[in-house]
Each structure stands twice: as C-alpha cells, then as structure tokens.
C-alpha cells in the first residue's frame, strides 16, 4: 500500500483528469495497433471520432448504444455501492427481455401502447430483479460469492433463453430462436417518429424513448443512493459492513435490495432493444452491454453523471467503430472489438494504474502553488 495511491486528490483529478488520461493511453495503444496494419492512426481516430457525431444519424446511434450502457452502468454502480460486484448485468438484462416479451405476447392484442409498454417494462424489471435475486439470496444467506454466481447466471440465462427462444416461442419456419413480432401497440416510439409529429424531419434510427427512461433512472439512482435512508444503508454496508451491522442495518436485506434494484435497472436494456427496436425477442440482444456496463460504471466512478458521460463515450466508440469498419475495410470488425477492449482495459481494469504518478505530479504542482501563494 503506497501512501501516494491513498493520498487524497481533489475530485476533479479523480473523476475528471484520470479517466481522460486512461482514455488517451487506450487510444495511443489502439493507434499503435492500427499503425502496425498500415493505416494512418490519426485518420483512423478522426474517422472514429467523427463517425460518432458527424450528423444526426451518427449522434442518434451513439445515443442509442449509450442508452444501454447507462442502464447496465447504473446496475453495476448500485450493486457496487453495496459492496457487490454484479457481473451478471448481461444475464439480468437478457432474462428481463423474456419478461417484457411474455407480457407483450400475452397482451398486445388487447391493450393500447400506453398501458402495454409500461406493463412490458414492469415485467422486464420484475424478471431482471428476479434473476438478480437468486445470486443475491445465495450471497446473503449462503455466503456464495456474488461474482461467481452472477457470472454463472449469465451462462444459465443464455442457455435458458436459447431453449425458450428456439423451443417455446419460435414461430414455425423461423431460422433463429426468437419470438413472433409484437403487435404495433407494443412499439415504443422512436425519437424520429416523435420529431416527425413535431414537424421536425429526422432520419430513421433505432434511437427510441428508452433514453428518457435512462435519464429517469439516473435521477432516481442519484436520489435513492445519496438522499434516502435506503441508499444510506446500502452505502454503509458497501463501505463498512461491520459498521452497518453495528448501526442495526441488516446486510442481508441490503444485499437483496441492492441486487434486485440492480437487476431492475439492467432491465432497461430490454426496453431499449426489445420494446424499443427489435420488437421481438432475439437471441443475444444484450450484445455485451452488461459487460460494457462494468467498465462504464468504473470509469464513471459509480456516479450517475459519470455513468452518463462514460456511457456516451462507449456509445461513441461503438458507433465510431462501425464507421471505421465502413471507411477503412482493412480495419476488420475484430480490430474494432480489440480497440474497444483497450478502452475498457485502460479505463476499467487499469483505472487506478495512473493514480500514483498523477498524485505525485499533482503534489508537485500543488506545493508550488502553495509556495507561490505564500510569497
């Protein structure tokens, strides 16, 4: 334990400067990879960056991906505040998709969208929370480590969904495991559709009203974690389980609450993908968002504002990556996955790698500033 890594740094260094340094490092290494295959890395970076923002289509796609990452990032963050590392966002979102699908398949012939969509979302949240509840219960009352169980539950979810998708819900003659297409009432409006109502012309993109739900979730998580007694209990357990017990807080209950909330937040992915875009249950619709959420939460320092920022960054990486594959065919999609992986590696797994030297440099400047003030 070096003292430098423990030293207090001002918040802007911890939550602003460090993620940026991490990102720059990741891009440098990615640039090196690009250089090796003979593409000008500056061109590649420019295409990637512009590809994420250059017009309303690109921005819409960036936000569409970011919406998923906000949900999964929040899910990871809430569990993390309770001291739990929820690796199972992927599986929870996946099973949540099943909940949304079942509710809508049952009811889409009878109900209007205004009732159907909230019901679908609620079913998704219940299923997502339920899928998180089992590992939470095992952790709270049986001591099974939640990291292990949530990872396992991702696999179980994947197998379960393949079974349900291919053997129970698949319409006859369809190739891929999936459900039938939802009725029109169950389609969450797209942003471009709403814009059209307002007389604005926007290109058709998958960006849908889930983004509003994501924003609501951010506000909710912020209030819940930092402004309510339940959030207080969650943070107490996460930061100091013994102190929480001393205070009369039941860690078991907190684990259950935090994980169920985590699963319910991850269910937002089902809203965005299933109700918002695909309009039917598809195999692997979560597409790794659950795992990206871990990096998003780490980079966003488990705070809703940070999570929104890092989710948009990762959304931009996904959208920009697709552009890059369009523009420079020699950069294959596997390389783009590798580049995204580098960003996750540097900003997630190695998030605190730079802290010691940043602390030293900061201390150096800080002393100078203090001396300058003194004289």
């Amino acid at each position, binding site marked *: 334990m070096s003292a430098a890594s423990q030293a207090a740094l001002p918040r802007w260094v911890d939550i602003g400067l460090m993620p940026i340094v991490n990102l720059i490092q990741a891009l440098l290494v990615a640039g090196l990879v690009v250089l090796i295959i003979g593409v000008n890395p500056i061109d590649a970076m420019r295409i990637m960056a512009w590809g994420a923002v250059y017009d309303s289509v690109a921005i819409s796609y960036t936000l569409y991906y970011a919406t998923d990452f906000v949900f999964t990032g929040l899910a990871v963050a809430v569990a993390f505040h309770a001291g739990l590392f929820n690796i199972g966002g992927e599986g929870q979102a996946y099973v949540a998709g099943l909940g949304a699908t079942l509710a809508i398949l049952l009811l889409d012939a009878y109900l209007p969208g205004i009732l159907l969509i909230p019901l679908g979302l609620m079913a998704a949240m219940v299923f997502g929370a339920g899928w998180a509840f089992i590992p939470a219960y095992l952790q709270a009352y049986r001591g099974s480590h939640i990291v292990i169980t949530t990872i396992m539950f991702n696999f179980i979810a994947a197998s379960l969904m393949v079974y349900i998708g291919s053997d129970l819900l698949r319409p006859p003659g369809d190739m891929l495991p999936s459900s039938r297409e939802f009725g029109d009432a169950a389609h969450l409006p797209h942003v471009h559709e709403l814009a059209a109502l307002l007389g604005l012309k926007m290109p*058709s993109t998958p960006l849908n009203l889930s983004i509003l739900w994501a924003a609501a979730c951010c506000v909710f998580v912020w209030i819940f974690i930092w402004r309510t007694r339940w959030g207080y209990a969650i943070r107490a357990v996460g930061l100091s389980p013994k102190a929480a017990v001393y205070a009369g807080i039941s860690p078991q209950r907190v684990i259950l609450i935090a994980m169920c909330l985590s699963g319910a937040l991850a269910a937002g992915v089902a809203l965005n993908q299933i109700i918002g875009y695909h309009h039917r249950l598809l195999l692997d619709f979560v597409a790794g968002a659950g795992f990206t959420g871990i990096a998003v939460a780490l980079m966003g320092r488990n705070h809703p504002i940070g999570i929104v920022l890092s989710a948009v960054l990762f959304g931009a990486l996904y959208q920009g990556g697709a552009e890059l*594959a369009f523009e420079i065919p020699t950069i294959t999609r596997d390389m783009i996955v590798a580049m995204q992986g580098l960003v996750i590696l540097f900003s997630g797994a190695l998030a605190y790698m730079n802290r010691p030297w940043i602390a030293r440099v900061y201390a150096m400047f800080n002393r100078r500033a203090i001396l300058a003030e003194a004289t």
Partner: protein
Amino acid sequence: MKTLMQAAFAAGAFCLAASAALAEPAVVYDAGGKFDKSFNEAAYNGIEKFKKETGSNYLEFEVQADAQREQAFRKMAQRGADPIIGIGFSQESAIKKVAPEFPDIRFVIIDSVVDLPNVQSIVFKEQEGSYLVGVLAALASKTGKVGFVGGMDIPLISRFQCGYSQGAKAANPNVDVLANMTGTTPAAWNDPTRGAELAKGQFDRGVDVVFAAAGGTGTGVYQAAKDAGKLAIGVDSNQNHLQPGTMLTSMLKRVDVAVYETAKAAKESTWKPGVTVLGLAEGGVDWALDEHNKTLITDDMKAKVEAAKADIISGKVKVHDYMSDNSCPI
C-alpha cells in the same frame, strides 16, 4: 478558434462524405465474417470475381451486432450502392425495413425471402445438393454408417440433413445416418473444437464418412476426419483443398455464383426482383470433383451420382424439402 473548428469539421466531413451515386454493388456479410471459409467467403469470392471481370469496385461490411444491420444497409443505400446484397437470412428484417425507404435501389437477400418490389430473394435447394453427397457418402462408406454434423440447429440445416439422409438411403437402403447439431446459438457456426468432438464421437460409433454443414465449425470436423483416417464432406464452397486426400467431396452451394450473377445482372440491367430458387438444374447446388478428391471417387461412384443428379433435374427423383413441412420422411 472558429477557423480551427471549421478546418476540423471540413476534415471530418471530407473523410465521411457520402459520395453519392456510386452504382457499385455492396455486400453486407453475416456475423460469421467474410473469411469463414464457407458461406460468407463464397459470397466474397463471387463479388471478387465480379470485380475482377468488370473492374468495378464494391463496398462491404461485416455485421458485428444485430443493431448494425439496418444501419449498414441504410448507409450503403445512402452511398448510392446498387445492388446491395445481404448475405444470410439474418438480414431479412433489416432489408424489410430499409428497402422501402430506397425504392430506386436494388436489394438482394440470400437464403431468405423478402417480398418487396425492389428486392431479389435468392434461395437454394440445399436438399438436392445434399442428396448427391449423401449418395457419395453411402457409396464410399465401408461400415455402412455415415455421419452428419450440423451447425446451428435451425430448419435450414435440417434441410441439409434431410437431403443427405435421403441420398444415402437411396444409394444403400441399409445405411445408418448419425446426426449431431453443434449448438443452438450462432456460435455453433464457428466452433471447430466442438465440431471435432462431434466427429470423433461419430467415428467411435463406426461412422467413416461425415458431412459437415456447419460453417467454420466444419474445419474441425475435417481435421478430425484426417486424424482418424476417415472421410469428410465439405459444404458451401469447394472445401476439397482443405484436407486433400480425406475430403470425399464438397456440397457446393453456389453463393459465389449467385452473388456474381446478381451483381452482373444489375450492371447489365437484366436484374429482376422476386424469388430465385437455385437447384441442381440451375447450377445453384452441386457436388465438387477436382484434383484433390479424384482418387477417392471411383468411376462407379461418379456414374451413380451423375445418374442421381440427372434424375433430380429431370424430376424423376423428387427430394423432400424439410422446410416445406418441417419434417423429414427419413
């Protein structure tokens, strides 16, 4: 500051400028990737052939996530690519969505049917090609047991299996057909390790000829056959060269021809929308004979398989299509 921003914007706009009206074809590959040594690669070979012959360039994209499909087609359309060829049935819903937005652009889907006025759907009678390699497998087998390794467990692959079984039974009514599917997710298209395991399992049960209709998973099957001294049958592309000497033949699904033909037709303005079914008669499916497997195919075998082919083309033999009723008579 402002000029700097403008310069940066110009630079960004430059490299992303939608160069309109290319009139070049575009190919959107499926999740397997264009170098899967099988289905997607066949499409790649077709469009490369077109490029070589006409000198015309083309655009391409490999799909990574489902959400990208629609984006890819729309992007190609905005670039003015024509025709836009979607490889694989997974592209169906994306083409359904995008094609109506660009009525002047011609779309092609392979392996599925989209009923729109500017879409050409190309499907293959895989059962016919599979029938032929089934005949060969039964003739080549000394144990009377032939194997089938499918990729993902979907009706399309059952169509391969069903045709194969019919062919094998036709050549030798006593033949046993052992079949396994690699998996139920798209990962099953690219799992050579599992493919090798399944093949070995079949060999242990006496199989000595195995047909893999499993995309990239097939390479594991072929390797296992070579290691065990058994015979394997390739799929989609001519895969005889992968393990020369133990590849009995390949069931050709001429995706390359289909891609080449549709691109060429579009260029020559003979392109038509609607459903195109390619069977033995159209040369869309076939069996492969080349220098890598000619020692394995005796004159007798060749005569019998050519006879079967002629019978199918003439309509004398009718091969049952699994997907017509989701069941197989055998």
